């Protein structure tokens, strides 16, 4: 076996006659930071949902940490941590209780769980606030808590779907600092999507660009820039995907994004 922690071959996902993911193949080497870019409706979130057992593929082969997300759900679920596109914390519980809940669901014994919660909340600088209800947290604190929670059960892979959406540049910077640090110290593979292309350029080892359900290119940020003769990844991205605005049904995240833009512009 190669050192690829994620392998996808000829992946297809249809929704009532609409092909969201169209014959996609890619691999992610272990311990790397991999970003998945693409305009709205490109099929990024659908792909993540398939990798994380939330959706079944129409056809194709998927391996996550060597396991099949369709037939080996529990093994795959133990292998990854996830930060969803939308918030997914229980606001009525404290930060610590959210972590405890996760640890119990993932079958961690009490001693390991408590030690790891302390370690991660310290790392994310949330330990002082552990007994506060999550509804009192700022957006950045909630995101940090979600990342800490995603890492609690020692996953090999951390999936993050637009982890920095709606956060100010300071907070985004801060969060990427943590994640790069984790990638180095724990050797965790990071797989994320974002619309902030400059963010992807800074942190990714490999970038894959997806559009209309297909992967149109992948490589290191430098390779993609060279390939398109662009001076930044954002420019390369626009050259590759065109500047037409994509329409898709508004998901709750898009509505959140619109609200955010109205508030901040």
């Amino acid at each position, binding site marked *: 076996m190669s050192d690829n922690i994620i392998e996808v071959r000829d992946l297809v996902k249809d929704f009532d006659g609409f092909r969201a993911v169209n014959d996609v193949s890619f691999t992610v080497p272990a311990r790397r930071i991999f970003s998945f870019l693409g305009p709205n409706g490109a099929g990024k979130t659908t792909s993540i949902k398939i990798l994380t057992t939330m959706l079944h593929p129409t056809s194709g082969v998927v391996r996550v940490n060597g396991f099949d997300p369709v037939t080996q759900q529990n093994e795959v679920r133990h292998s990854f941590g996830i930060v*969803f596109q939308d918030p997914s914390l229980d606001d009525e519980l404290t930060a610590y209780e959210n972590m405890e809940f996760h640890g119990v669901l993932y079958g961690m014994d009490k001693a390991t769980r408590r030690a790891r919660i302390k370690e991660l909340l310290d790392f994310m600088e949330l330990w002082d606030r552990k007994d506060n209800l999550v509804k009192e947290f700022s957006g950045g604190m909630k995101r940090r808590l979600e990342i800490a929670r995603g890492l609690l059960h020692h996953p090999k892979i951390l999936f993050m779907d637009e982890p920095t959406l709606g956060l100010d540049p300071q907070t985004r910077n801060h969060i990427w600092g943590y994640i790069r640090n984790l990638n180095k110290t724990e050797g965790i593979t990071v797989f994320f999507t974002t619309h902030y292309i400059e963010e992807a350029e800074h942190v990714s080892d490999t970038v894959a660009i997806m559009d209309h359900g297909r992967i149109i290119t992948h490589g290191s940020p430098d390779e993609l820039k060279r390939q398109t003769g662009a001076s930044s990844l954002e420019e390369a991205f626009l050259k590759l995907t065109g500047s037409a605005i994509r329409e898709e049904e508004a998901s709750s995240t898009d509505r959140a994004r619109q609200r955010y833009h109205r508030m901040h512009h």
Partner: protein
Amino acid sequence: MKVIYILWLRQLKRYFRSKARLVGSLGQPLLFLVALGFGFGPIFQKAGGGNYIQFLAPGVVAMGILFTGIFTGVDIIWDRQFGFLKETLAAPVSRLQIMLGRTIGGATVATIQGIIVLLLTFAVGFRLDGMGFASIVPAVLLMFVIALLFTALGTAIASLLQDVQGFQLIMNFLVMPTFFLSGALFPLEGLPRVISDIASADPLTYGIDGLRGILTNSAHFNMYTDVLVSLIVMVVLVAIGSYLFTKIEI
């Protein structure tokens, strides 16, 4: 077991933390007890029905359980809206465990609510006939069965709904009729045929009648029939709720 326990604990924590909801949900039963209990009391007495508070109290206790049970079941819609459902569904545990933990937790909350309402009924003059204080234990057990039944029903409905818009519909076409047509407020004797048939098809009817049998020794049906019907409907609804919950897609 640990998974079921942590989900159960979560429901209880959420319940005891929202003091406003806790106090607010006692307003309605109290209003029913005071306004209807004292308002219709004299007429009920004249018509030969006896003490109306004695008749009404088990019905209002069951109302508290019905509302709380359905709402904690329907909570899944909120968890879906606020994203927490994804966290539980992405975890390496079976959906059945999640559903059972939530439902038992919700039913525990509904039972506690029922016990609080029962204490309120004592304050407005309700007295235990028949077995006296010995009736409290079987009454609480039956309350728990009723609570499981309606929490599972709420879970089943919530599994089919995508968002909170359908909520008003449930209130007006399910919860209210279930309560008003159950014999909580009026005796089941001498009713028009249609109403009597509807009441016999309403699971809450048997729950309330069973409570009346236990607390005041005045069941319309046989008390054991009441308990048996409640148990059977509860098991069926937990099965349906579990099935629908495993089919949720996010």
